């Protein structure tokens, strides 16, 4: 390999099937100036130790599958230049707040169930067929939800959110931002169908506004901002329900 500099990666190893305890394994890597952490892990897997398990697909910050804890921070490993961690060592761990399947791979099933809870799709009774044309939106209507629609489901926000470690039932930043993304979409009429999931103690109100989700988000989705907008809408709804006569409440 035509490496120029050397750095040590300390990689989290764990295989629940062999009954062993988790441990860190060190690998020394010669790297090129443009290498990212993912390049080093792929090189280690190809050249030194083929037993390492990790997820990756696109290598360009689009697929959201290579999220890991890099020196204790949630990062896309394809966006983390090794030279920024020189002289090392670089400690690489699976995303925190998730069960570990093997080594750097986490179990995503809880996250996928959370996404489904907020019904992340446009809901309305009068579905047009394509013959009637598209649902048109003004630039302002698109701007209302656009930044919250950029999520790549990388789960870094779940690893960054301290509430996730304290409240395992918390719906979490990405799911709440996604629900809010559809609530803010002028084409959507499904807010009432999301309110039970989103406005409960494990939903919007579980958030204590630490804001770390927005700090670690690689796509500037600003989940913390989406959650705050959701809280304003939910509070308005709470007061509306409060002043309505009892028979009129849903």
């Amino acid at each position, binding site marked *: 390999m035509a490496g120029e500099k050397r750095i040590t990666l300390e990689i989290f190893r764990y295989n629940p099937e062999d009954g062993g305890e988790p441990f860190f394994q060190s690998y020394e890597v010669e790297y090129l100036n443009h290498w990212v952490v993912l390049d080093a892990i792929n090189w280690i897997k190809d050249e030194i130790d083929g037993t390492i398990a990790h997820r990756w697909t696109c290598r360009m910050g689009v697929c959201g599958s290579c999220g890991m804890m890099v020196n204790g921070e949630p990062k896309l490993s394809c966006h983390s230049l090794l030279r920024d961690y020189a002289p090392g060592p670089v400690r690489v761990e699976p995303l925190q707040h998730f069960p570990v399947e093997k080594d750097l791979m986490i179990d995503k099933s809880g996250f996928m169930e959370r996404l489904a809870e907020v019904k992340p799709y446009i809901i309305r009774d009068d579905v047009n067929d394509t013959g009637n044309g598209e649902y048109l939106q003004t630039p302002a209507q698109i701007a209302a939800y656009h930044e919250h629609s950029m999520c790549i489901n990388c789960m870094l926000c779940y690893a960054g959110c301290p509430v996730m470690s304290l409240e395992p039932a918390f719906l979490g930043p990405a799911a709440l931002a996604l629900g809010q993304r559809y609530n803010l979409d002028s084409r959507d009429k499904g807010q009432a169908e999301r309110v039970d999931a989103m406005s*409960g103690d494990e939903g919007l109100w579980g958030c204590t506004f630490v804001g770390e989700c927005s700090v670690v988000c690689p796509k500037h989705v600003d989940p913390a901002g989406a959650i705050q907008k959701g809280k304003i809408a939910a509070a308005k709804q709470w007061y509306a329900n409060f002043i309505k006569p009892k028979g009129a409440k849903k």
Partner: protein
Amino acid sequence: MSRSNEAFWWSLFAAGGVLGALFIPVLVLLTGFWLPTADPVEAAEHYTHLVELLGRWPVKILLIAVIGLSCFMCAHRIRHTLMDLGLRGHARAISLACYGAAILGALASVLLVARI
């Protein structure tokens, strides 16, 4: 999931945060720095003006809102910080203590400001 009454406490927190951010720096600057460091004769005049101003009910109501809602803002933030620090087992006691103190603070602001 039940629809949460957290909306009520959060709305007081949010209102206190907005009013506090707008008015408290000005109040601290006026009463903490400007008046104490002004010329004593001038300061006495300004003080008289301030007391006159606080004699008006719209100003009193605004001041009560700023102080009272700021109490709720602090209570809500302290409550969530304590929960984040791992005291979730005592959630009820923490809520009672925090919001109870805020209610007392808000009542005290009503009594004190009304007497000006």
